């Protein structure tokens, strides 16, 4: 069934890929920066590409912070992607001193160890046993920073790049992915479909 998907226009994101992924499934996509639309829409996507600080500054500048926090608190349907997921957290070592949305009690840090950074490519995702949206599979990642461990109150699926990190968080109708479901082939498309139909 065709649904309306409202995508937050964050300025720096790969919006065309996100839009194309939903349109391929027959959904109508609307890009917006209007806080009221973000507060009231049935389904909202918070994409993200770029630095934590710049992305957060954009949300503050457009007055989108309260609407996004409210959506998570009220369990309204939300999909946060890549830096979008990181923005839900308290802070990131990428942009010291910048406060995130803080609805996830976690702190983002850079990949450690001997691995190449950024992580650019496909990696195994191990779904949490109680995950409703995420299933185990292979997802496309493009990130230098990550949430190192699960946060209280969230169901965390994991992946490994020089150590385990959080690949996705979910709680109720809210799904946050460090990977790019819109670029993760058939597996990612199926995940998007589960979120659209199930949230």
């Amino acid at each position, binding site marked *: 069934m065709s649904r309306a998907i409202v995508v937050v226009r964050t300025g720096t994101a*790969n919006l*065309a890929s996100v839009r194309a992924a939903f349109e391929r499934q027959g959904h109508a996509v609307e890009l917006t920066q209007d806080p009221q639309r973000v507060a009231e829409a049935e389904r909202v996507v918070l994409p993200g*590409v770029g630095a934590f600080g710049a992305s957060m500054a954009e949300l503050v500048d457009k007055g989108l912070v309260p609407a996004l926090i409210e959506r998570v608190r009220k369990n309204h349907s939300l999909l946060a992607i890549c830096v979008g997921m990181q923005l839900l957290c308290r802070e990131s070592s990428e942009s010291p001193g910048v406060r995130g949305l803080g609805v996830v009690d976690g702190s983002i840090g850079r990949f450690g160890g001997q691995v*190449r950074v*950024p992580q*650019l490519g496909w*990696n195994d995702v191990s779904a949490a046993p109680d995950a409703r949206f995420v299933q185990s599979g292979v997802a496309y*990642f493009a990130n230098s920073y990550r949430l190192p461990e699960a946060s209280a109150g969230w169901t965390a699926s994991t992946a490994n790049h020089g150590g385990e990190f959080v690949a996705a968080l979910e709680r109720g109708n809210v799904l946050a992915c460090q990977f790019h479901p819109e670029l993760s082939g058939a597996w990612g498309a199926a995940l998007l479909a589960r979120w659209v139909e199930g949230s």
Partner: protein
Amino acid sequence: MLKTRIIPCLDCKDGRVVKGVRFQELRDAGSPAELAALYEKQGADEIVVLDISATTEGRNAALATVRAVRRELSIPLTVGGGVDSAEQAGVLLDAGADKVSVNSAAVKDPRIIEAIASRYGRQCAVIAIDAARKGEGWEVVTHSGKNRTGKDVIAWAREACERGAGEVLLTSFDRDGTRSGYDLELLKAVSDAVRVPIIASGGAANAAHLLEALRAGATDVLAASIFHDGDLTVADVKRYLADNGARVRL
């Protein structure tokens, strides 16, 4: 664990896929969107579109190509060829690219790398380097090899990454189109010098060549003619690599 990407490359001119032998002697190889969709179905992990058009009309066609490929593709798309400003990178990202590669313009003014990385993130900024052997090392060449820059490839790769490049697309000018295998020493030297992913390009004729590149230090491999010619599918190559111990997405 992270997998090795197998990346078919579509060299496009005036909106059509062409195939280059030492960047010369082009022949038509089909519609970019059709080929990209075919490769995704075969298991490609990413698609690179390099625009080699020389005219404004050709460049506009390239933008339409990016849009058409994006509509089809649910895997990452990197676009490059003649990108000479962060604004132009933005136009390509808006059209549907996920990453943008810069080559000659960055050699001319390396600040373009910082401009793209700071605006769109370093995972978006690919430095494409064409390397020609010179003495004991390699020299950066641009403009299909016509311009010898005098720049050392290793030093340039380091500088580009310090300025914000998130991966290196490393093409051996000497091997490109020769079907004699990648320049393995070049791959080893650059992968030892920087800590970002290294995509090997130039010279592949069979799956064994791809495996050699990975063993030499490349994290990912790009090829064009072996796939365009239809000798091997992406799936064939991935099966061979998996059978020989490489981590690939099957």
